[in-house]
C-alpha cells in the first residue's frame, strides 16, 4: 500500500512493533528518521584499496577542517562586531579576555590556511589521478567551485579583524576586479560598497563570510558529497586492473580518517599555543600603506604575477590581461573533464607548468623586499 493511500484511509495505522533487544529511542528514530536506511548505506559503502588510497583521505580531511571552521566561526560570531569602529577591539577582546578565545580565534585562522592547503592538495590529487573521468565530471565541477568558495572565505575573512595589513591587502585585492573590461569598476564598487575600502566594505565582507558563502557552500558541498556517494571512489586507471581489494567505509576507512583528523586537531592546537594568530595594528584608512603589504599565501602568485606584467601589452593594460588570464585559468579548471583528451598528456603538462610558475611566483613574493634607503 502506498503512503498516500495509507494516509487517506480511515483505518487507524497499527503501532510499530518494537524489535526485540532494541531500546525505545533507537526504535523511535528508526521508524521516524529511517535510521536503518542510513545504516544500510554506510554498511554497504566500500573504499578501494590500492597504492593511491592515501589520497582518498584528503577529501575527508578537507571536510573535517571545514567543519572546524564552521564550529570556531560560530563561536567567534558570539563576540565579533562587524563595524570599523569595533571590529578590531572585539577581536582584541576575544584574544585577551574571553576564556579560550585566543584558542578559538587562532584555530580559526590557522585552520583556514590548513583548509585551503588541503583543498588544493585534494584537487591536485583528483586531477593527477584523473578522477574526473566520466561519470564524475560534475563531482569535479562542484569540487572546483568549492575551491573558489574556499578562496572566497579566505579573502572575505582576512579583512574582518580590520587591521592594517588586511585593510591594505583588501584595497589591492578589490582593485583586481576593476581591471575587467566593461564591468570591472562596477564589480569593484559592489565588492567595496563604495569607491574605496571602508566600514561599508567590512559589513559587506562580513555578510559574505558568514551568510552568503556558507549558504552557497552548504548547497554545493551537499551536491558534491551526494555525487561522491552516488559514483563511489574513482580508481586510477593504472591500478584498475591490478587490484580489486576494498575496505568497508564504516568502521575501517572512517577510523583511519579519524586518525588524520585527530592529528590535524593536535597540529592546530600546537600552532595556536606556540604561534597565536597575530592581530596587528588597527587599520587607519588615512594612513599611508605600510611596506610589505601582501595577501594570504594562496593569492601571492597572482599578486606577484600582476606586479611583473608590463603596463601595456599590445596596447592593452597589462593588469587587465593578467586578470583575464586568471579568469580563463579558473574557467579551464572547471572545464578540465572536457578539456582532457584521452591519450594526450597536454593538460597534465599545462597543469604542471602552471603549478611551477605559481610556486616560483609565491617564493619571489615571500623574499624580503630590499630596502630602498640602502646606499
Amino acid at each position, binding site marked *: 500500500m502506498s503512503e498516500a493511500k495509507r494516509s487517506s484511509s480511515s483505518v487507524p495505522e497499527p503501532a510499530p512493533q518494537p524489535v526485540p533487544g532494541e531500546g525505545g529511542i533507537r526504535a523511535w528514530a528508526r521508524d521516524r528518521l529511517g535510521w536503518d536506511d542510513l545504516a544500510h548505506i554506510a554498511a554497504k559503502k566500500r573504499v578501494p584499496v590500492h597504492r593511491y588510497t592515501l589520497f582518498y583521505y584528503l577529501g575527508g580531511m578537507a571536510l573535517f577542517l571545514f567543519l572546524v571552521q564552521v564550529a570556531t566561526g560560530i563561536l567567534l560570531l558570539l563576540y565579533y562586531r562587524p563595524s570599523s569602529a569595533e571590529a578590531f577591539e572585539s577581536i582584541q577582546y576575544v584574544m585577551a579576555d574571553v576564556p579560550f578565545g585566543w584558542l578559538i580565534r587562532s584555530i580559526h585562522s590557522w585552520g583556514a590556511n590548513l583548509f585551503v592547503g588541503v583543498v588544493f592538495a585534494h584537487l591536485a590529487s583528483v586531477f593527477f589521478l584523473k578522477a574526473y573521468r566520466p561519470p564524475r565530471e560534475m563531482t569535479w565541477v562542484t569540487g572546483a567551485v568549492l575551491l573558489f568558495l574556499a578562496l572566497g572565505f579566505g579573502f572575505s575573512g582576512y579583512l574582518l579583524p580590520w587591521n592594517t595589513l588586511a585593510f591594505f591587502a583588501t584595497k589591492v585585492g578589490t582593485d583586481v576586479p576593476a581591471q575587467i573590461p566593461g564591468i570591472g569598476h562596477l564589480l569593484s564598487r559592489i565588492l567595496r560598497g563604495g569607491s574605496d575600502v571602508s566600514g561599508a566594505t567590512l559589513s559587506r565582507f562580513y555578510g559574505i563570510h558568514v551568510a552568503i558563502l556558507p549558504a552557497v557552500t552548504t548547497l554545493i558541498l551537499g551536491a558534491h558529497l551526494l555525487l561522491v556517494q552516488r559514483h563511489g571512489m574513482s580508481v586510477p586507471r593504472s591500478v584498475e586492473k591490478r587490484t580489486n581489494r576494498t575496505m568497508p567505509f564504516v*568502521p575501517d576507512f572512517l577510523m583511519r580518517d579519524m586518525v588524520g583528523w585527530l592529528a590535524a586537531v*593536535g597540529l592546530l592546537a600546537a600552532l595556536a599555543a606556540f604561534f597565536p594568530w597575530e592581530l596587528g595594528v588597527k587599520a587607519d584608512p588615512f594612513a599611508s600603506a605600510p611596506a610589505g603589504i601582501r595577501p594570504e599565501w594562496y593569492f601571492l602568485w597572482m599578486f606577484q604575477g600582476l606586479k611583473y606584467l608590463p603596463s601595456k601589452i599590445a596596447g592593452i593594460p597589462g593588469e587587465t590581461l593578467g586578470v583575464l588570464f586568471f579568469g580563463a585559468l579558473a574557467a579551464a579548471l572547471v572545464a578540465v573533464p572536457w578539456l582532457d583528451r584521452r591519450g594526450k598528456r597536454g593538460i597534465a603538462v599545462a597543469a604542471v607548468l602552471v603549478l611551477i610558475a605559481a610556486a616560483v611566483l609565491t617564493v619571489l613574493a615571500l623574499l624580503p623586499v630590499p630596502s630602498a634607503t640602502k646606499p
Partner: protein
Amino acid sequence: MRDRLLVLALLVAAASSARAQSPPPKSPPAVNGCIECHTALDDPRITPPAKLFADDVHAKAGFTCVFCHGGDARQEDQEKAHDPAKGFIGKPTPRQIPELCGKCHSDPALMKQYDPSQRVDQLAEYRTSGHGKMLAEGDTTVAQCASCHGAHGIQPVKDSRSPVSPTKVAQTCNHCHGDAALMAAHKLPSDPYEKWSRSVHYRARVERGDLSAPTCNSCHGNHGAAPPQVGSVANVCGTCHVTFADQFKLSPHWEPFKDMGLPGCVTCHENHEIVKPSEAFLAEGEQSKCSSCHEADSAGARAAAAMRADLVGLDGEIRQATRLVDRAAEAGMEVSRVHFDLVAATNALTKARSQVHLFRPSAVHAAVAEGLTVARKAAAGGQARLKERDFRRRGLFVSLGLILVTIVALVVKIREGGRSSREPGE
C-alpha cells in the same frame, strides 16, 4: 610750441623717474630693455642676474628691473637707459638695500595686493637687529636683505629653492656665522652651526624631518636677529618648552639666577649644543650640572641626588616591565592593554623629569610615585601573560597526550579489524 615740447619732455622724464617709487603696473611692460641688453651682452658680471630675474618672485608679480635700479627700460641707448635723472642708481649699496626693499615691503597697502598675509614690519625689525644696527654704523659686512634672500631670482620663503626656506636657513646663516675670519672681526664664535648640528634640535629637524624643531631664526628671530638676552632666554626656550619655562619661574633658582646674571635654561642645557638631558645631569661627575654651583653634601646636592634616585628608580622599573611585556608579546600573547600601562608609566617619567625644573624633590617624587604604580601594573600584566603562556603550553601537552592516546587506540583497533574486514571487491 617749444614750450609745449619742453613741458611734455619734463612730464615723460618725471613719470619715468617716478616708476621707482610707485606701485607696479597691473601687467608687465611690453618691453624690458634691461633684460634684452644685459642678456645679449654676455658679460659674466651683469648677464647672470638678468637671467636669474626671469624666475624671480617679483618678476612674476610684474615688477621690472627699474623698480629697484631706476633708469628707463624703454631706452635702447645705454646712457639714456642708465640716466641718473631717471632715478638710475646702478647696483644698490648694502646700506641702500634694506631701504630699497622696505619701500614696498613696508607698505601695507601695496603688499596687501600681492600677499595679504605678508608681514610689513621687516624693515622696522631689521633696524633693531644686530645686523641692522651695525649696518647703520657703517659696517657693510653684515647681512642685509640680499645676503639671505638673494638679489635676483628671489623665491618665496616657502619655496624649497629659497636660501631661507625652513630646511636651508641654518646653512644660510652659517655662510657668514661659520666664517672664522669674519666672526673673529666681530668678536663672535664661528661654531654655532657645528654645535647646533650636535643638538637634539638638529636631530629632530634634519634627521627626523620635524620642521617644528628650532633652527637659527626660531630663537634669534629672522629680520630682527639678535642673541637672546640673559633675561629673555627662558622666554625664548619657553615658546616651545612652555611647561619647563613655567616651572623654572616657580623654582627656587629663578631669583638667584636673575641676580647672578645667569642665562636661565642655557646655564644647564647650553645654547646651541643642546644635548639630550639625562639623570647624570643631577649626579656628581663630568656631566653634572648641579655640582658646578652646589658643593657635595650641601642641601642642593642632596636634593639633586634625591631627584636622581627617584628618576633612576622609575626608569629601571619601566625597563623591567618592558622586558616582561616584550617577552610575552614575542610569545604571541595579546599585550595591547599592558602597553597602555607602559605608555602611561613612560609619560609619568617624562612628567617627573619635567618636574625637575621646579627643583623640589617632593614634586618629582609625587610624579615618580604615580609612574611606579602603573609601571608595576604593567609588569604584573606582563607576568600574568607569561603565566598564561605557560598554562597554554601545559594544556597543549596534556591535550596532545590525550590525542596521541586516542590515535594509538584507533591504530590498534584498525590493526585488529583490518585483517578481517578487508575483502575482495565485487
